[in-house]
């Protein structure tokens, strides 16, 4: 089995509401509540085994790869109050669900975890670690520092859409991660502020600039912007480059594929466009953290803020549900290029991965895989989401009925996007995107946005070219 004809046959039988299992040779009545779309999805997998796994039924493969009881360890970078509590909650739930598995949770400051990841994975890492999808995940897979988990993925992939399925694949085609949450980047605003001033949502670049000018005359900071840490500016670069030059160009540029160079005039155009709105940014933005930028939006000092959905965590942390209820967002306005139709945006996916060099992994592999299966469940992800509302569950069976309007809208904007990127520092190599490279270059640009960027682009390209082969 495994060919598409077989799958189609299965699909047809499914629509008929019954299925003959070859091993059992008996017709089973099925009441799976499958929609036509689900059936097509299942057909797409092209194998009966995948279908069985997809249904989450007691497939034989699943039970043999996991183990209950025992112990395992997790390295986590979730140190924000919300995500920290969320991680603890799912670990506790796992302990109960998996026969009292003793889980050691090692929580490391997010920045430190990220900075020391290479040494961490080569030393004595925990069995499972938190990480990002994208180029950075594939990099460690290529270097042999992550364990492929195709068996787990086969068992859980029915709970994921195709976009997530491709996000866990390494360059070698094996699965290396289980996605647990994602969040879109968009322009956030307060509904009450927009209502009070009678602002309408801008859908194109000119309207957007006009709105900025209007806000400025109304005494607001039109766009909250905070780039002390260097990475927030990359979000603006991403969206402008995606909309002006398209997804393919963006990916090629960030990975240097197909000879794409930073000196390209198309990149200069991005900076030129960007310079049209920098006058509307927060004063002293180069010394502000993203949290301070979020505070400007929260306190109605600023009108808009281009950031990830995690800005809502900051609203939640303020303790005022009324403020959180006012938070809303809209998609980045069309810039008038042919790529507007792609509706591309950054929607980074957070994942769990299984390390390779963990000294306890050989003993704990079963428990580790059980945990990976556990976090692929919608119920687990919703538990996490309740603590960190900026992290939308990735599983298809997540109970979306509890979602507030903001989360529903976030799901919607991502599903409408034809192309999704992870974020600059997850899509490009870290030595290029870090403080050493692009963060510094973008800060230089922002110091003099109206200036000629030829020299700056040359520096970017020179820096790129001297980087050793990855």
């Amino acid at each position, binding site marked *: 089995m495994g060919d598409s004809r077989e799958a189609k046959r299965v699909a047809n039988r499914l629509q008929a509401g019954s299925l003959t299992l070859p091993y059992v040779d008996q017709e089973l009545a099925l009441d799976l509540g499958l929609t036509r779309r689900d059936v097509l999805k299942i057909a797409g997998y092209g194998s009966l085994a995948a279908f069985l796994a997809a249904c989450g039924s007691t497939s034989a493969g699943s039970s043999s790869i996991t183990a209950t009881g025992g112990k395992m360890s997790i390295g986590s970078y979730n140190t924000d109050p919300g995500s920290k509590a969320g991680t603890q909650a799912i670990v506790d739930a796992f302990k109960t669900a998996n026969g009292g598995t003793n889980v050691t949770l090692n929580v490391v400051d997010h920045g430190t975890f990220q*900075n020391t990841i290479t040494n961490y994975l080569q030393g004595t890492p925990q069995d499972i670690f938190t990480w990002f999808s994208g180029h950075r995940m594939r990099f460690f897979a290529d270097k042999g520092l992550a364990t492929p988990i195709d068996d787990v993925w086969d068992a859980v992939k029915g709970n994921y859409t195709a976009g997530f399925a491709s996000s866990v694949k390494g360059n070698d085609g094996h699965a290396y991660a289980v996605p647990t949450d994602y969040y879109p980047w968009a322009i956030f605003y307060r509904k009450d502020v927009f209502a009070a001033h009678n602002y309408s949502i801008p859908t194109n670049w000119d309207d957007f600039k006009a709105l900025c000018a209007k806000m400025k005359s109304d005494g607001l900071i039109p766009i909250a912007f905070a780039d002390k840490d*260097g990475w927030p500016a990359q979000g603006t670069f991403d969206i402008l480059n995606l909309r002006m030059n398209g997804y393919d160009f963006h990916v090629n540029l960030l990975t240097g594929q197909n000879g794409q160079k930073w000196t390209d005039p198309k990149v200069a155009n991005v900076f030129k466009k960007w310079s049209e709105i920098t006058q509307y940014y927060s*004063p002293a933005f*180069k010394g502000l953290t993203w949290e301070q930028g979020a505070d400007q939006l929260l306190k109605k000092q600023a009108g808009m803020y281009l950031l990830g959905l995690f800005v809502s965590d900051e609203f939640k942390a303020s303790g005022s549900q009324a403020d959180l209820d006012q938070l809303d967002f809209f998609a980045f306005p069309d810039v008038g290029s042919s790529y507007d139709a792609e509706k591309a945006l950054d929607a980074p996916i957070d994942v769990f991965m299984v390390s390779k060099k963990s000294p306890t992994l050989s003993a704990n592999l079963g428990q580790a895989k059980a945990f990976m299966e556990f976090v692929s469940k919608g119920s687990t992800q919703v538990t996490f989401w309740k603590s960190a509302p900026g992290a939308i569950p990735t599983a298809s069976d997540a109970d979306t009925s509890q979602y507030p309007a903001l989360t529903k809208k976030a799901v919607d904007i991502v599903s409408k996007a034809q192309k999704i990127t992870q974020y600059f520092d997850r899509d490009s*190599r870290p030595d290029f995107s870090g*403080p*050493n490279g692009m963060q*510094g270059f973008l800060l230089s640009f922002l110091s003099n946005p109206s200036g000629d960027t030829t020299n700056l682009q040359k520096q970017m390209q020179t820096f790129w070219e001297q980087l*050793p082969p990855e």
Partner: protein
Amino acid sequence: MKPEAGAVAISGRRRRYTLLTRRDKILLALMVGIPLALDVILVWGPTLASVLLSFTNWDGIGVPEAKNWVGFKNYQFLFTGYSQFWPAFAHNVIWLLWLTLIATPLGMLFAVLLDREIRGSRIYQSVFYLPVVLSLVVVGFIWELQYYATEGFINNALGLVKSGHLIDWLGDSRLNLYAVLVAASWRHIGYIMILYLAGLKSVDPSLREAARVDGATEVQTFFNVVFPVMAPINVVIVVVTAIEALRAFDIAFIINQGKNGLELLSILITNNSLSEATLVGFGSAIAVVLLLISLVPIVTFLTRVMRTST
């Protein structure tokens, strides 16, 4: 034959006279050998490794191989193409000048003033010394809270937040280095003060008495009598200042990981070889450059110490 203490050990061809027993020799070998081994393992080994790695493009994963060898390419890029190197170098020089010309003299001045047993000198001593017990990371956090453009103490105290003319102490690349230098001096002054105060206490009081009897003023006494007597301490102070300037790292790193006007050589090393970016080879090249620069004050210090001790 078991040699006794003071016995003449006779070897096959040459006769050597020794006062050491075998036990003494073993003990000596251990006493010299262990520190030497530690020195080689912990200092010379890594130094040599850094120098070797600086000729490679090793990414920190696995073992460096022959194909990683790139010759002087790292150095070439460092000096000609890397846009952050010369700013970082300049910032270290500014750091050195600031500490030498402003912070260190201030620390010495405080020491001299406190040495005069003015009322409450113990309290002043404690106050000025207090920042020294804090780690530089903590100092960085404390000053960050003062400097934040919108929430920081300084801009609020000056009323700049209300008037909307914010001074971007941390983000303005022409300002932030000096803001950081003030923070660093806050700690450095206390450090120098204590060092110098200890030195002043050891100056023979009869020298000052003699100077006073000869009719010298306070200032003359200090510059013509006390300062020359303090020569060994002065050298230590100069070297400490130079080393502090070269190893400047913490505060700038806390504030923004050393970019946008806060580039420093030590931070470039970290950002290249110890961060998520694992350009170990390139980072090592910067480290070697910093080592060569550091050798100047270290050698000066050592020759000075050696000379005074012989």
